[in-house]
């Protein structure tokens, strides 16, 4: 790893920790950062412990984890397809996962009440994974020609699949119970509101298991950016590794979607910003992961407190609204770059 990449990774790690602490501190009832640290180390008053550990920490932890998961998923898909636009939120993986999750919320919903234990805890992540994998398989099969993946096709077909999955979601919202549909719609905006540890744990497992798998193939990815023919002549088993990493990327995006909804643009923007800052030829996985974590917790801090800071009221925004507001202009910038052939 180049020293520039190492330094940037350390900076992002420090930022992630700093913003997370700030996020645990700021809110309707303020807990000074010093007290937050004390609580995390096992001390602090009971009231503070409740606010920090029970109310805010699950939310911040989920934010950090889905940030990592989305960002790494985007880095993998962009590298494998050699296209900066090919991230799970653009090519339909998140939409497929959303369709799966919304199907569970709406079809297994109890009409306004909470979804019964099994359907909620296992059903939503499982349905999200199935939906995400289905989208990946369709996009993958349709965009491979003569064993080579066409990056441009990945994006075009992916956008189509995303549209199809989104209309399926819209249809389910229409036929579903009004309260279920309301909850599903809030979830679809990408929200970290009222996250519990049961939301964070599946994403934690996905990150702990899948990130090392991705890093294990880091060096093979370095060869694969030179093209499939060059990589195979360097001894890389291209078809096998691509399939494996596609599955890893899909699972990460699907689990993150199940945990916090399809938070927009994290998977697209984090790898590209990390790529530009490190000046590498492909998004560096660890730096991208940390930047993704920073992006989501920072966006959530703004989403949770932004309207309050503006004295508009005590309302919260879904975090996806903030990431979309920051990410959409960047998407347009990237499209412009590709249009100019650069």
């Amino acid at each position: 790893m180049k020293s520039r990449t190492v330094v940037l990774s350390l900076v992002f790690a420090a930022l992630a920790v700093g913003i997370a602490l700030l996020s645990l501190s700021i809110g309707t009832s303020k807990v000074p950062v010093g007290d937050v640290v004390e609580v995390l180390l096992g001390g602090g008053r009971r009231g503070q412990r409740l606010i920090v550990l029970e109310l805010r920490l699950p939310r911040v932890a989920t934010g950090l984890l889905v940030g990592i998961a989305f960002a790494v998923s985007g880095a993998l898909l962009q590298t494998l397809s050699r296209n900066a636009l090919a991230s799970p939120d653009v090519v339909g993986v998140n939409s497929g996962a959303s369709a799966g999750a919304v199907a569970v919320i709406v079809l297994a919903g109890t009409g306004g009440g909470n979804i019964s234990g099994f359907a909620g805890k296992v059903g939503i992540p499982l349905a999200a994974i199935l939906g995400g994998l289905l989208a990946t398989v369709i996009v993958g099969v349709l965009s491979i020609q003569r064993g080579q993946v066409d990056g441009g096709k990945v994006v075009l077909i992916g956008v189509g699949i995303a549209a199809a999955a989104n209309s399926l979601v819209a249809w389910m919202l229409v036929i579903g119970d009004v309260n279920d549909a309301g909850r599903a719609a809030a979830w679809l905006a990408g929200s970290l509101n009222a996250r519990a540890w049961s939301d964070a744990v599946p994403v934690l497992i996905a990150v702990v298991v899948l990130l090392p798998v991705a890093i294990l193939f880091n060096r093979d990815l370095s060869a694969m950016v030179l093209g499939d023919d060059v990589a195979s002549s360097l001894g890389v088993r291209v078809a096998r590794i691509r399939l494996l990493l596609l599955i890893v990327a899909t699972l990460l995006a699907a689990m993150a979607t199940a945990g916090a909804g399809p938070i927009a643009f994290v998977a697209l923007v984090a790898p590209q910003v990390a790529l530009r800052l490190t000046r590498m030829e492909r998004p560096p996985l660890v730096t991208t992961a940390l930047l993704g974590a920073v992006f989501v917790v920072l966006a959530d801090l703004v989403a949770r407190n932004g309207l309050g800071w503006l004295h508009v009221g005590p309302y919260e925004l879904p975090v996806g609204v903030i990431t979309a507001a920051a990410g959409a202009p960047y998407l347009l910038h990237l499209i412009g770059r590709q249009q100019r052939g650069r």
Partner: protein
Amino acid sequence: MHVENLTLAYGPDSPVVAGLTLEVPSGRLTAIVGPNGSGKSTLLRGMSRLLTPQSGQVVLDGQDIHKLPARELARKLGVLPQGPVTPEGITAAELVSRGRHPHRGLFGRLTAADDAAIDEALAAVELTELRDRPVEQLSGGQRQRVWIAMVLAQGTPHLLLDEPTTYLDLAHAVDVMNVVHAAAHTAARTVVVVLHDLTLAAQYADHLVVMGEGRIAAQGRPVDVLTEQLLDAVFGLQATVVDVGGAPVVVPDRRLAG
């Protein structure tokens, strides 16, 4: 390295290369030429593992290349495909370092041996001073030499290059061919290069293979092979072959209007 009764096809179509047998001279530069669609690039893909043959085999040091583990083959046989795409932002030295992939473990920095191989490869293509430049900022000829340095750094005793001079002007093509020739002669590598320029091939090759319609039409020393009769029969080209310092030069006959 030898090719035995090799039949290559893309899908169920009629074979592009049919039952071809070829003995590649060791430690020499072999050039494969032929008209468009004669199967010369396909043959090269079949000689590496980029294309699985329908029948026949390619034997390297006594072993069928399709039976070797991928990494082991990558330490014996380097391949530069036609028109490789350079990723944006990569520097010359970084690209060359990727050639060390089959020698490296999962983790860890480049070893002293890796660094030495990279330095040597960059020196061989005379790009040491441009090593930290992004490859996309280099000229076409320099870029092609970086790619050749990448396969040189792979440190393989056998090298296959598919049309390394395509799209280069003559001066740059000569630069590239000098590097390829040195790779065979100063480092005693077995080099096979597909070329479309007959005169360039004849200037540099120790062994010239002329392909036509998926078969070998002629092979041997360039002076013996490259005759006016052969050019007419294989390429449908009316030309005069002139001997310049022991190497045949192809001068096409003009057919001027009016």
